[in-house]
């Protein structure tokens, strides 16, 4: 029964977003340009160097494309959580608590960012390009990786979003810190983990499991050993990491909501 309610909520939101057609179309285009601008930056850099962190342009574009697609999906589903501080400050969150539905699901359904489709389309397009320009040994397993990597990545990014924004229940001004983790991990995952120093890598690759979004799956797809010395199976465990991340994020959210006290406004 609850599913029906969510579908209705999402449907109502989508109709709302479509009501300013020009603006909506422009926002889709802007999202695509945003995503392609990141690609342009990579190409501009490779116009001046032949390798970045030991990887060629096609290899870096592959990582960027997987990361971008995953981030686009996550942003569409979980991006609404950026509004959490406003919900808390204005007391709107209390309204969510009163309804007999999950708070997290309500937050996500309250505004599905359909415009992010532009970003996803650009991400998938770059992925097709990168896959055709890399020397990949095609097999059933490779196809599985191509599908599983962006999907697991999307789950990982969404979990990061949930866990990072849950901080706002404790610190009302926590939004910017949450952004560091969410948008920061997007920036991190678009490039090979080898370009970063040890501290950044420890944090964004393993504390926040960013390396499992694009870096390790790409290595497995390319049939390359990890220059950092990680074992080969790491490329295949992203779905497991995604499930663990989702569980952790769920626990963090529940704990945070239990802790929540209204701001009194």
């Amino acid at each position, binding site marked *: 029964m609850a599913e029906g309610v969510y579908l209705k909520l999402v449907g109502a939101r989508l109709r709302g977003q479509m009501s300013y057609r020009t603006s909506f179309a422009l926002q889709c285009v802007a999202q695509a340009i*945003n995503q392609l601008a990141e690609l342009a930056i990579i190409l501009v850099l490779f116009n001046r160097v032949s390798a970045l962190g030991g990887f060629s342009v096609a290899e870096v574009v592959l990582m960027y494309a997987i990361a971008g697609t995953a981030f686009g999906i996550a942003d569409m589903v979980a991006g609404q959580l950026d509004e959490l501080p406003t919900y808390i400050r204005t007391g709107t969150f209390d309204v969510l608590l009163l309804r007999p539905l999950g708070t997290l699901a309500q937050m996500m359904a309250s505004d599905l960012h359909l415009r992010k489709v532009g970003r996803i389309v650009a991400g998938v397009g770059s992925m097709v390009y990168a896959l055709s320009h890399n020397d990949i040994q095609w097999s059933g397993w490779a196809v599985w990786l191509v599908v599983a990597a962006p999907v697991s990545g999307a789950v990982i990014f969404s979990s990061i979003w949930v866990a990072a924004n849950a901080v706002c229940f404790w610190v009302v001004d926590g939004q910017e810190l949450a952004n560091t983790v969410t948008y920061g991990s997007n920036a991190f995952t678009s490039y090979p983990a080898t370009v970063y120093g040890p501290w950044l890598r420890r944090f964004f690759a393993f504390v926040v499991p960013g390396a499992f979004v694009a870096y390790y799956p790409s290595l497995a797809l390319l049939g390359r050993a990890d220059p950092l010395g990680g074992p080969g199976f790491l490329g295949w465990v992203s779905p497991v990491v995604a499930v663990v991340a989702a569980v952790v994020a769920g626990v963090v959210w529940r704990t945070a909501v239990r802790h929540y006290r209204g701001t009194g406004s």
Partner: protein
Amino acid sequence: MRAYVVLALAGFRRYSTYRRAMVAGMATNVAFGLLRLAVLMAAVGQGDIAGYDVAAAATYVWLGQGLMAVVVLWGDGQLAERVRSGDVVVDLYRPWHLQMALFAEDVGRAGFAVLVRFGPPVVFGALFFPFRWPSVGVLPVFAVSVGLALAVSFGMRFLLNATTFWLLDNRGVQALYTALTWLLCGLAVPLAFFPDWALPIVWSTPFAAMLQAPVDVFLERGSPWPFLSRQAFWAAVVLALGHLVLNRAVRKVVVQGG
């Protein structure tokens, strides 16, 4: 004139109220600086690129991190919101020039941002990374260049907001603007890294006047005068355009009851 000075001071005070948000902002800013620096170092570490060595590249990153909140490299929707809600009518019948008043407030905001947004990342960068300080005589020129960058950025944002008079919902235009700025202002990668055929194009946009120009003045990449004159040109163009657009828009506004 006095009114505008008071408005600038009010802008300064208004933004100085949110102290905790500021501290969080600094941490975020430095974290993104570190991420950007790593990628750029992976490239420049292999040998100088377009006159950027390791020190120049690091200075470029920290200046960019500091300037982006001073100059504001994304759309701001405050006026757009007031146009949509109709509150802009109140702003229009006040005894001021709306564009000038908003600019004065933005100058106050930027003045505060210089202290808390520009200072910390630059100091952080200068302490922990190779840093290229310019000769002392360049610093006032750099300040002028930042001022012009702010004028261009404000002019662009004002034009964006003014589109709301026609579009009612300008979020699409805003998003498009932010995407273009990010690529073309020289924040993500120095404009000098672009391929030679693209250089005249990227340098001819107003976006280059918003960030890359002051950074290049600071790094003393050639004489500052070409940068400053291009910035002054764009500042004059976008501010004049904003004035014209506002005049047209005012004639369009319909006050519905009261």
